[in-house]
């Protein structure tokens, strides 16, 4: 196991370098001159030249990347054009807020899809099973941005059960339940399609287990159905459940961007959206980089947990 961790950590280094290079080089997709875009069309040529010098745009590409990477290692992501502050200083708080939302979403994915899968597999081909499958088909096909709006309309506008936006009340901030109250709708919207996928995959894994010969052997020994289902079937299907849940982390990152925008959740997705609206290139770069790097790290953690839980690896 320690060997596995060290190997995976070493493998992460080139991937992270590659990710940072893609984010760095993507700026060259901006049509026209970056300095000109930053300063606006009215800017004088001398001002543009000065900024080019400041940003190091006149130097060779690899030198630019080296300088950028060196700054990055010191948590310097440049200045936000629209807000005139350091990008890195804003992102810390935002990523924590995003983690809170993703934590709630992951919790929903794990609990809801586990319960649904166990129910579906133990009631194979019943009406309940069919309804579950139909429900997952609907959830897997609904765009997050639309599902968020639908939830907002149903449970904030039609029946005002949940707040429409933000993380907290301004007049009464704080408190865990306050946070849960605000996070419910965005977390459901974020988790929906992942719940569908995890439910389907773990349901078929559980059905596969039921058809195994060792299950037949247990059945012939007269072990009660309840014990058979809830102990033997579930335990043997657990690795594939954990595996597919781990794979959903990346998907949650994508969906969270949309729910943050719809529900005005002050996370990194909303920050990215605002940066796009203001054409704030360093901020777009910073947000993308932070999301991508956290994604690489969470994939590593998911891998680690899957391995730790898999009995055959011990």
């Amino acid at each position, binding site marked *: 196991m320690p060997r596995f961790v060290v190997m995976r950590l070493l493998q992460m280094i080139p991937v992270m370098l590659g990710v940072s290079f893609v984010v760095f080089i993507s700026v060259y997709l901006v049509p026209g001159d970056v300095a000109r875009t930053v300063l606006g069309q009215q800017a004088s040529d001398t001002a543009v030249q000065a900024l080019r010098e400041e940003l190091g745009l006149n130097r060779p590409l690899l030198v630019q990347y080296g300088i950028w990477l060196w700054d990055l290692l010191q948590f310097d992501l440049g200045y936000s054009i629209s807000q005139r502050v350091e990008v890195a200083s804003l992102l810390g708080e935002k990523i924590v807020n995003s983690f809170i939302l993703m934590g709630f979403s992951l919790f929903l994915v794990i609990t809801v899809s586990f319960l649904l899968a166990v129910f579906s597999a133990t009631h194979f081909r019943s009406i309940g099973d069919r309804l579950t499958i139909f429900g997952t088909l609907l959830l897997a096909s609904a765009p997050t941005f639309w599902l968020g*709006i639908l939830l907002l309309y149903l449970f904030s506008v039609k029946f005002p059960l949940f707040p429409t936006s933000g993380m907290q009340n301004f007049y009464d901030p704080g408190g865990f339940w306050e946070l849960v109250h605000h996070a419910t709708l965005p977390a459901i919207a974020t988790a929906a399609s992942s719940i569908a996928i995890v439910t389907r995959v773990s349901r078929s894994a559980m059905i596969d287990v039921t058809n195994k010969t060792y299950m037949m052997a247990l059945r012939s020994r007269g072990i009660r159905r309840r014990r058979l289902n809830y102990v033997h079937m579930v335990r043997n299907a657990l690795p594939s459940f954990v595996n597919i849940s781990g794979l959903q982390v990346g998907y949650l*990152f994508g969906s969270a961007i949309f729910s943050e925008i719809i529900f005005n959740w002050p996370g990194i997705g909303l920050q990215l959206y605002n940066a796009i609206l203001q054409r704030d290139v360093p901020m777009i770069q910073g947000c993308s980089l932070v999301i991508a790097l956290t994604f690489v790290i969470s994939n590593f953690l998911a891998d680690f947990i899957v391995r730790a839980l898999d009995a055959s690896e011990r």
Partner: protein
Amino acid sequence: MHPNAETIATPRRAVKPRSSFFFIWRGILADRYAMSGALILAFVIVAAIFAPWLAPFDPTVSFPRLRLQGLGTPDHILGLDHQGRDMLSRLIWGGRTTLFAGITPVVLSALFAIPLGLVAAWNDRLGSIIMRVMDVLFAFPMVLLAIMLAAFMGPGMVNMIIALTIVLLPYNTRVVYVAAQQERNSSYIEAAIAAATPTPKILFVEMLPNVVAASIVYSTTIVGNIIITAAGLSFLGLGVQAPTAEWGIITSDGRQYLFNAAHISLLPGILIMTVVIAFNLLGDTLRDALDPKTRLALASRK
């Protein structure tokens, strides 16, 4: 053909060669879910193609006095939007844009991924370079990469299609790469090498037909996802631009009017969901139809 060829072949009827289209067709006919998916798609695609004739109004013409009117308004059965434009017409035209923006990147990325994957599987050195680059692209969440590329390139339909094509490339290349690696060790390739067939011919004549199926199956299972992502990019203002009718843009337009005209936001999403469900139902069947292991069952079924 020799006159007796027919009689010689008859005793072994089971090996009658069938094209992939036969299996796709059989698979769709045999499965009522796939059948309903195909019918929905046929309906939506016909509506998209004939939008200019089907839509009762011009999607950009507004009736200012009727703005925000809901479902069941006379002459405007699905209501009107915040500028008083007919919702039914906008949805029909919107389908045209959304489907085009969602399907094109899938086709384009397959066209790039097939040669990339074949070359990567054939030449180990090139292969490791290509696959390492793809690994880096894999390290991004799909939606984030699409948003980032589209944001830097600037809004617009063409840029969005380029961004989505790049995003799909690693997934598609990996599918082709894995399929081609399996083919590489098979005996017909060995025979081709022994016969001194030039490498390009081995790759693009011998191997190609056997990896294309994998790519097509993958493409149909991903189309639904890409339609959602394309609509999402337009929703964020990164794709197709207003006043063009597009399902993501219509959803975004309606966001400010949830309190009094929720139909603007809610209707296009229902359509996106329907189309994606149809693609997903069809994708499952296509996977079975093109998989040599399950296709025998389809051939024997009458």
